[in-house]
Structure formats: C-alpha cells, structure tokens
C-alpha cells in the first residue's frame, strides 16, 4: 500500500477517538471536498440486502443453517458433512481407459441443499455414485460424516463391506423409482427401515406419517378422505406416487446425506412442493410463518404448488431432526431456486462451486460500490465468482480453505492494519469487501489519527485509491478478527474499464475541477 498523503505519514495505527460510526461513505467523502475516504463505500445503504450499513446474509439468516448448532448428529462446527478431494476417475482398462473425472474437490456443509448441474456426460452422476459408495474410488479422497460414529468414513481403499456402511448413511432417490414390484408401499419402505439398527419407535407409524405427508395417506390436499396407498403395490400406483414412495424410502431413516437424481421430475406441483419443503425442513427448521405461506389457494399457488394446513404439523413431525444435506441432480427450477450451493460440472471437472448466499453477499456488496454498480449484472457476477471461496459468509474461513483459494480472502487478526493511510497503490493493491468482523477507519487530522467509522460485514473499502490511482487516504485496522474478500488491481481495472463512462462521472465528484480524468 502507498500513502495517500506522502507528507503526512501515519506509521502507527491511530488510536480511536471514540467517535461513533459514520453512517455513510458519502457523508465522509464530502461531495465538495474530494476527500472521500478510501475506506468507506460510496453507495447508499438502501441497496438490496444492505441494512444498517451491513449486508444481511439472506439465505443463512432466513434459513438458519448456523442454527443447527453442534448437534451430536452433525460434524463439529465449521466442518463439512462431505469432503471430496482431488477425485479422478477412469472408465475402462488398458487402451480403452478413459478419464472421466479430473481433480474434483468439493466440501458440503451440513444442511445444505446442493444442486449438481452440468451437461450430460459432465461427470456429475459419476461423482454422485462415488460419493454414495456405489463405485470404488480410484484416486483422491472422499469422506462422509457418520453421525453414529461421530467421525468421517473414508471411501478410499476400503472394502466392499465398508462401502456398504457408507451407503447406509445415505438416502438415495433415483429418477426411476426402482421399487420392488412384489412389495407394497409400506413394505418397500420397511426394506430401508430394516437397516436402521438399534432404532426404537414405531416403524409403521413412521412410514405412514411420511407417506401421509407426501399425500399418499387417507387425506388429500383438500382434507377430503381418500383411500390410502399404504398397501398398494407399485403396479397400482401412478408414476408420481411411486416416486413419492421411493422418496419416503430414501428419507425414512432420516439420513444426514441424500443423493437424488431428478427427485421431483415425475411429480405434480403440489407433490413436488411437499417433497422440496420436506428436504428443506430436514435440512434446517423453517419459521412457521414461512411454511404457512405455502398453504394457499390453487389460484395463488399456480404452478408452484401448495401445501395443506394439515401437512404442516406432520412436516414438523416427520422432519423433527435437521441437518440433512441433499445433493441433487435436477433441472427442476422449483429446487434450483432453493439451492444453497450450486456445483456446476463440465467435462469431468467442477467448473464452479458457488454458495448462493456467498454470491448474493458479494454481489450485493459490490453493487454498493459505484465502481461496480454500473456494470452489467453478468459482469458483477464474474467479479463475484473470482473472489468466492465456496464458504457461506456466516462461516469462518478455515486455513485450508484459504490455501485452496489463494488471494481471494484475506484474514486479519484484531489490531492488524489492513491498509495504511499514505500507502501508494500499485499492481498488488486491492479492493476489499468485508466478509466477517469489523474494521475501524482512521484518518490523520493534524497529525493525530481520527476514527472516522467502523465497518462491518458487507461493507467495502479501498476503491478510491484504485480509482484515483493515488495513495490510500485512510488507515483501516481490524477491530476484531476480520475476513475480507480481496479484488486485485487487475480485476478492478478490467471491470473499471467496462464501466468507464460511469466511473468518469464518479471521478468528477472527487476532483476539484469536476472534470473527468483521462
């Protein structure tokens, strides 16, 4: 960093003077003086997702994954339920040996709804089968959390017997239901229940409640009585009903990991909504008010489907345990819109692994900055994707995640200086968006540091020096442990050029002459 004002160096972080937080970068910038603090965002805080100077973490606050806490069924806080590391896979042998997966790495946190996307043949199914222990892992590592053992089960170099143990941890939903034709719906579910060892409870009741919730019981959506399908064999069920039985079979043991292939493809809107809501509720508890909104008239529901009032208490009952993670291959927009993480594969590689909440968080943060606000959403997305690390902004970044995504997030311990007033800008200079923690902004006034403001998650700093190509005009110090997304100079300049006309107008505000700089 270079100094914004080479004549007034400020070698030590100035102690705070005790002023309160300035509420807006614009206030600090002082439209007349061109003394906009480099540390403070320019945009008004009325942008989407920005409340009171910080960005909310929309999905997490609403969905409350963090609220899962440290359940004995879940991995330790911050640890994933599934780890995939450096996975390669080959089909065939000898001359016909063909590599179909290339160095795939992925972590999935408890309670996430993960959508696997990608064209046919991109390797998502192969990866799913490896995760499920349905194939032998050839290269790389896969670890699945075993709640019963309180430890991870590794899938590399293990016996078939161990793979079977892994399969028992997972609920599989296949596009083709693959129910036993000779067994009734209840018996098909019992096939899965039988494997849950040392369980207590009424198996039949459990299965009945699940089937009833999925509209195969004695009540239909309008609360009218209907003949239950409990004892129907698959031949006497429609395609959608079979699929719901298969879903019930996959979920009846309340697995902590669900692998699903187009689980809602054969379902009508109402059944599809019931399934999706169940998967969400198994992931994490939702406020009753949210669920209540799904109880609506057919006209209101349209193609989105609706739930019956009687389904809500049943949903809470059948989904009394939470933290279920679902990896779903689907093209169903109803599910895609609810995804916590979208993993996109191309030609055997994970091309992107996006935590939706993180992307929203970063995009909303970027939009606050005039440097990025004007560019097209797609361009904003590109910048966001260059700093994303695949970790929910509510979750602290682990050192291994930092190492795996070098340069994207920087971590400063409390008291550390993020940038210093007067530091020159150069090729290594960066623009920052606060991910977690709080920073204090100081500027030297009469040789003494004056605290201008405190900035929290979702706020940005460091763009003025990059825009003006002049030294930093303030010192930013970590008030707590701080994690910041870092947009490097090259990226900044690249997108700056895209939004040049707007930036020129912005710059005009900072120059005494008011004219654009060349």
């Amino acid at each position: 960093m270079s100094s914004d004002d080479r004549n007034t160096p400020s070698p030590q972080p100035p102690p705070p003077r005790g002023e309160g937080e300035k509420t807006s970068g614009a206030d600090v910038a002082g439209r007349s003086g061109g003394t906009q603090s480099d540390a403070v965002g320019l945009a008004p805080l009325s942008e989407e997702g920005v409340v009171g100077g910080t960005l909310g973490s929309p999905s997490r606050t609403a969905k409350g994954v963090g609220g899962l806490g440290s359940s004995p069924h879940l991995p330790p806080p911050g640890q994933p339920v599934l780890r995939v590391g450096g996975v390669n896979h080959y089909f065939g042998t000898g001359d016909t040996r063909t590599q179909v997966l290339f160095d795939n790495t992925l972590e999935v946190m408890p309670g996430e709804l993960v959508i696997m996307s990608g064209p046919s043949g991109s390797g998502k199914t192969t990866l799913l089968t490896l995760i499920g222990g349905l194939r032998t892992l050839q290269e790389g590592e896969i670890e699945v959390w075993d709640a019963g053992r309180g430890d991870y089960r590794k899938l590399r170099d293990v016996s078939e017997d161990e793979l079977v143990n892994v399969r028992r941890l997972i609920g599989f939903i296949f596009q083709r239901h693959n129910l036993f034709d000779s067994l009734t719906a209840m018996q098909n579910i019992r096939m899965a229940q039988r494997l849950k060892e040392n369980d207590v409870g009424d198996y039949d009741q459990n299965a009945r409640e699940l089937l009833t919730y999925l509209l195969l019981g004695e009540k239909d959506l309008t609360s009218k009585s209907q003949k239950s399908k409990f004892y129907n064999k698959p031949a006497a069920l429609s395609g959608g009903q079979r699929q719901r039985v298969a879903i019930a079979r996959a979920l009846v043991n309340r697995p902590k990991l669900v692998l699903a292939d187009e689980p809602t493809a054969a379902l009508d809107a109402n059944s599809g909504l019931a399934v999706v809501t169940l998967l969400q509720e198994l992931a994490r508890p939702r406020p009753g008010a949210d669920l209540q909104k799904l109880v609506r008239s057919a006209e209101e529901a349209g193609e989105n489907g609706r739930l019956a009032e009687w389904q809500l208490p049943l949903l809470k009952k059948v989904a009394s345990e939470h933290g279920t993670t679902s990896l779903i291959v689907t093209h169903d927009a109803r599910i895609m819109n609810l995804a916590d993480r979208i993993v996109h594969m191309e030609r055997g590689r994970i091309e992107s692994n996006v935590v939706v909440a993180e992307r929203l968080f970063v995009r909303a943060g970027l939009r606050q900055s005039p440097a990025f606000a004007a560019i097209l959403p797609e361009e904003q997305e590109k910048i966001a994707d260059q700093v994303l690390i695949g970790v929910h902004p509510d979750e602290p970044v682990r050192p291994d995640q930092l190492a795996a995504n070098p340069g994207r997030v920087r971590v400063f311990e409390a008291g550390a200086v993020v940038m210093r007033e007067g530091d020159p800008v150069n090729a290594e200079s960066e623009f920052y968006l606060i991910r977690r923690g709080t920073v204090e902004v100081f500027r030297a006034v009469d040789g003494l540091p004056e605290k201008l403001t405190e900035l929290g998650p979702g706020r940005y700093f460091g763009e003025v020096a990059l825009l003006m190509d002049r030294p930093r005009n303030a010192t930013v110090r970590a008030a707590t442990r701080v994690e910041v997304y870092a947009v490097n100079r090259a990226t900044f300049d690249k997108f700056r050029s895209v939004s040049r006309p707007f930036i020129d107008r912005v710059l005009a505000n900072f120059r005494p002459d008011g004219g654009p700089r060349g």
Partner: protein
Amino acid sequence: MTPLRLAWANLVHKRTRTFIAGAGVAFAVVLVFMELGLLGGVGRTATMLYDKLQFDLLVTSSEYLDVSRTDAFPRARLAQARAAEGVDDVLPVLFNVATWRAPAREGLFGNPIPAGELMSINVIGVPPDQIDRVFVTGKDGVFASTEEARAAREKLTPRDTFLMDRRSKPEFGDATKLQQIPLDGKGDEIVRVNGQRARIVGAFELGTGFSWNAMLMTSEETYSRVTMRPLGTVNFGLVRLKPGADPLVVRERLRAVLPPDVTVHTRTEINAQERRYWLRLTSIGQFLLVAVVLAVVVGVIFVYQMMAADIRNMLPEYATVKALGYRPPYLTGVVLWQAVLLALFGFVPGFVAALGLYRVATDYGGIPTGMTIESALGVLVLTCGMCLASGLLAVRKVHTADPADLF
C-alpha cells in the same frame, strides 16, 4: 423384510411365472421319481422272487448269473447240503421259461386281439406238499394264509395243473377267468404251456418286473413234463437252518462240503448280487441311473433359466437393495430362498403326479414301482439341491447388479 419374506413375495407376486417355474420343477420331479421308480422296480425285480421264498441260505449253480439265468444243478446237492451240520432242511425249486398261449383279449383301444399269440412265461416248480414252506405266506406273501397255501398244495397235486400269478400282465389273461377253462379247452378258449395241455386251478401273488411278465406255479412233476427238464436237476436249493445256527458258518461249511458246481449264498449276498447285476451290469439299470442324473440336470437347467430370467428382470430392484445398504449375503439369501420355495412348489404336485404314474406303471406296466418315505424324502432333498444349485448359478447374476447404474 427377511430374505425368506422377500423371496415369498416375489414368487407370489409373479404367479404365472412362478406357476411355470413350479411346473418345470414338478416335471423334473416327476422325471426323477419315474426314473427312480423304474430303478427301484429293477431292484425289486432283482429280489422279488427271493423276497417271497423262505430260506436262510440259497444254493444255486455255480454258473448262476441272475434270476432269469439260473442254470440247473444236480438234485443230489440238496441231499448233500441237508446232511451238513446246522442245516434243518433243503427244499428244491425249479425255475424256467415256457411259452404261453395268450387268450383272446382287447387291445389298448378296444380292438379285439384273437387268442393264440405265443408269449414267454416263467414257470416255477415246487414240491406241492412243501409249498407253504417254500413260499412266504401271509400279508405280502405269495399266499395270503397258510390255509391258502395248503389249498394250493391240493390243487397242484393232479398233473398238468398250474397256479397263475394274479399280478401277471393283463395280456396273459385273467387268472380267475382262466380257471373256468377245462383241461381240454372250451371252444376257442384253451390253455397251453409249451404247447401242452394245462389247466389253471388257482392263483397266487408274486408280481412282475423286468425279468418276467407272468408266472405259473406247478408241481415238480408237471414242471418236468412241461419243460422237458429232468427231475434230477433243480435250480435253487432253499436251505433252512436249525434254530441258532449261524448262516455264515453254515455257508462256509456247505461251500466246503459241496462240489464246485454249486455255490451257497446268504439272503443278503444273493440280493446284493442280483441288484448289482441289474443295476450295474445290465443296460437298463445304467440307463435309468443316467436318466436320473439327466432329469436332475434338466431340472437344474430349467430352474436356472427361470430364475436367471427372473433376476434379469429384477436387476434394478436388486441394485436398489444394494444401494440401500444390504450386503451380498442378503441377496444370496433371497435367491436361495426363492429356489427352495420353488423346489417345494414343484415337489408337491410332482410327488402327487408320481404317485399316480407309479400306480399306472405298476398296474398296467407290471413294473413294481413303489413310493417309499426314503425315496420321497430323497427326491425332496434332491429337488431342493437341484433348485439350490440353480439358485447358486443364478445368484452370480444378482451380484452383477450394479447400484451405480441406478443413477
């Protein structure tokens, strides 16, 4: 859901398929039962005569091959044997083949077959006054009672009189009706043995088999006259021992004192020799043994085909079971239970059908087939083994069910 319940559900669900598979198993069971029945018939044929004769030791010609080729030996050997220590008595039995003039009868489809067809019939000659000591009497005996045996003695005393086996094949004529025909015949009805006049005066129970289709019993004199065999030779010597005499010791004693033109057998020895001859040395025994093996092989292949097709159809379900977390032994259990249930489904009708066919074979074929607990249990075990073998072959297919293919 235990493997047995799932196997049962699979079979019950696909009733038509199960019925066909069960029918296939039943067919194999019937085949096995029939081959075993015929094989048993051969065994029974082998010892049928000896089972109905009373003896502790049996003297035969040293040229004796089997009951249908006994060869004769001098009657004097009987007296020599009788003199040996431990021997109570020795009774002669003459045994040979003659021609029989068949009476008029109806063919299988009711077509009349005129009298006069010549057939081969066996004739057994015994001293009439010893008849109740020669043959077993009572239940399952040649005569139902000693009284009946004694009555037979009276009947056989006149020359040219014969008793006829009631269980002779039907084409030889009905023993009761034949008794109505006088010595010189009645019109077209006439009885001739080796072309000589004869009269049926009564009946006895022996049975037929692979060695003979009908049997006549007569006195030694009539036997000699009809067969033109000298009375100085006999075919069997029935040795009865004194109480407490050890058959093996006496056998050795007799072998020592009798010339080498005869040999002495215990009952066990002669029965074993006969069975060995019929089952191992004759082509019919070998054929039936091979047929049993073939029936089992056919059954294995049939059941395997049915089960393999069934498993092929259910591979996705089996793959799902694997994906759910069931271990391979569970699937093996399902397939093997299915095999055992199929075996039972097939065995019951096969067993019932075999009982009926045994009756037909015995009544109309003259083959002494019979269902025994041992053979029923044996075939049940064999059927289960056959289906389990099929199951074990088919179970490899189950293990090819790849849960990875489900996605």
